[in-house]
């Protein structure tokens, strides 16, 4: 199979997924949530929350992780990966907001939490943070557009306020990455003890950082294949080492918490829960162990596969928290309807497609060119003038 036909297969696949998603959208908004989902009063949250929101926000964590690394901790050598990470994050949050409109019973009321405050509510905090952080990401993304269209004056102005914006973005991410875990703290009596723990917010935050790193490795690999551009391999190696450490921190916290709560006995309970718990832990522990070996870190493929394995473990974890852990106490079995799956997959496909278009037309993989100072504009303008008048 040649590279070209491979490429066309994925394009066709993406288009097909998006088409099915359009059909599902008609069912959702032409009909109702009842017609388009298998949710029930016993099981009110499905994959639109479990995957689209919980995983979507986590997978977009690369934006704040790298922005903090480069702009706050001044590890400038990571600068070349900031832009693709910001683009992914911006796309990710955009798609999360879109997915939310599908899930809400009355999406046109989505602004209500911004006006009718209930500061006791974790959802209120998540709503505000996601709104603000999406705005921050738009501002962090804007320089690429301005650079593309050579709007130098606007670029310079934006650059002056960029550091506070980046700091705000990191704070907002810390807040809501963790509060997505806090959402579940209200239901200790409903959740399986394998996942319910008062530590959920911290665990969500730490795993989000690891996911940000893994997503950066993932993107770097795919951009290299699609655009013949690659991150410097030593950078990827460094990222993969940090990733291994972050997974180790996460798993250590997880295991200590399990022991402290004496939750390991839950593994004796029959049912699918313990197996799905096992899948999640193995998918995180194996890449961690592999990445600690220097041998693994010598191969780009091996690093990529480890990152993918961890990402699958992360997705399993979020689905387990959002769905598996709540299923038994609900008394019903939840299997998503085709339309739920279609919209989820369609949004993922849309994410890839928009990333491709943006990467083609915007300076995503280019080094940032510092904007010209105002004096240079005048010089440039007078140059142009003299050339014109010379002719």
């Amino acid at each position, binding site marked *: 199979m040649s590279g070209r036909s491979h490429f066309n297969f994925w394009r066709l696949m993406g288009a097909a997924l998006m088409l099915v998603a359009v059909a599902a959208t008609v069912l959702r908004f032409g*009909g*109702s*949530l*009842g*017609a388009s989902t298998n*949710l*029930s*009063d*016993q099981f*009110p*949250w499905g994959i639109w929350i479990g995957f689209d929101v919980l995983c979507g926000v986590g997978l977009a964590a690369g934006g704040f992780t790298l922005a903090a690394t480069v702009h706050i901790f001044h590890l400038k050598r990571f600068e070349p990966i900031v832009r693709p990470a910001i683009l992914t994050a911006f796309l990710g949050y955009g798609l999360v907001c879109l997915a939310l409109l599908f*899930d*809400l*019973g*009355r*999406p046109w*009321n*989505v602004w*209500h*939490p911004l*006006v*009718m*405050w*209930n500061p*006791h*509510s*974790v*959802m*209120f905090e*998540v*709503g505000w943070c996601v709104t603000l952080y999406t705005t921050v990401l738009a501002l962090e993304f804007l320089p690429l557009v301005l650079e593309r269209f050579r709007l130098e004056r606007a670029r310079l102005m934006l650059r002056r306020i960029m550091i506070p914006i980046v700091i705000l973005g990191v704070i907002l991410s810390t807040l809501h990455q963790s509060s997505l875990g806090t*959402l579940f703290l*209200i*239901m*200790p*009596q*409903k959740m399986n003890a394998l996942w319910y723990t008062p530590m959920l917010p911290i665990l969500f935050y730490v795993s989000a950082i690891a996911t940000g790193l893994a997503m950066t490795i993932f993107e770097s690999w795919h951009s290299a294949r699609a655009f013949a551009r690659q991150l410097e391999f030593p950078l990827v190696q460094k990222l993969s080492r940090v990733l291994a450490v972050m997974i180790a921190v996460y798993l250590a916290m997880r295991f200590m918490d399990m022991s402290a709560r004496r939750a390991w006995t839950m593994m004796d309970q029959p049912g699918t829960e313990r197996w799905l718990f096992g899948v999640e832990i193995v998918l995180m522990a194996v890449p961690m162990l592999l990445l600690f070996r220097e041998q693994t870190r010598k191969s780009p493929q091996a690093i990529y596969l480890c990152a993918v394995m961890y990402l699958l473990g992360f997705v399993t974890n979020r689905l387990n928290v959002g769905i598996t852990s*709540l299923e038994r*106490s*609900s*008394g019903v079995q939840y299997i998503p309807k085709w339309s739920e799956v279609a919209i989820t997959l369609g949004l993922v496909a849309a994410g890839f497609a928009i990333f491709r278009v943006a990467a083609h037309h915007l300076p995503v993989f280019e080094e940032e060119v510092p904007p010209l100072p105002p004096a240079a504009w005048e010089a440039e303008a007078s140059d142009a003038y003299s050339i014109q008048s010379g002719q």
Partner: protein
Amino acid sequence: MIAHKDNSNNARYGMVVDIDRCTGCGACMIACAVENNVPPAAPTANERTGITPMRVIRYEHAGGTAFVPMMCQQCEDETPCAAVCPQNAVELDPATGIVGQIPQRCLGCRYCMAACPYHARYFNWGDPTWPDGLEKTLNPSVAPRMRGVVEKCNFCHGRWHEAKELAVANGKTGPVEYTPACVEACPSRAITFGDLNNSATSVNELAREKGSFRLLDSIGTAPKVYYRSRRDWVRAASGNASGTAEGAHRG
């Protein structure tokens, strides 16, 4: 615990459900649906497509069968649904103790349903449809159901309004007496309703009697719905003695 803290002008409406008296006939569910403008289920309806603010749950046990009418438990402390709603669409009314739902504010995120420890909240998964002519039976003192919002039992708040208006017209102030539809409909008089703050009411007396308990009392939500049973295994399944959460309302 039963009557507490409030000044005398506030009511704390509550309920005592005698599980031993309940035969599981379902008259309360029908009365509830009729009172609250819940349309009759379509022939193709499944468990999700119609809302019922009240459900009678059958609980099987080696000791026998128990029927447990489940509705909003009107939690008084840390009311989970009111705490989690991002836009204050759920409020605990201090004048009545009733947890009220404001559907106009609700955006349908369903966090309150996920948070409710009693699975007592219901979502309008679709538009209510009325067979021809039957829409004439709509109750004018209760708003019709609307798609995309979460709702629940509000102790027949429409009836409370009517009673209050009547009392005010007669120059009376303070708590009023009224009867919710399910209480009225129960043929075996399993449900007693009234003001828990008023020590003269039978609901106050029953709630304090031996054999009365609340579901998941240990989690500290302080519900105003009490259950009672003389059977030990029914009380043991209430989520208090055994420490297991789900026994009492999942059969």
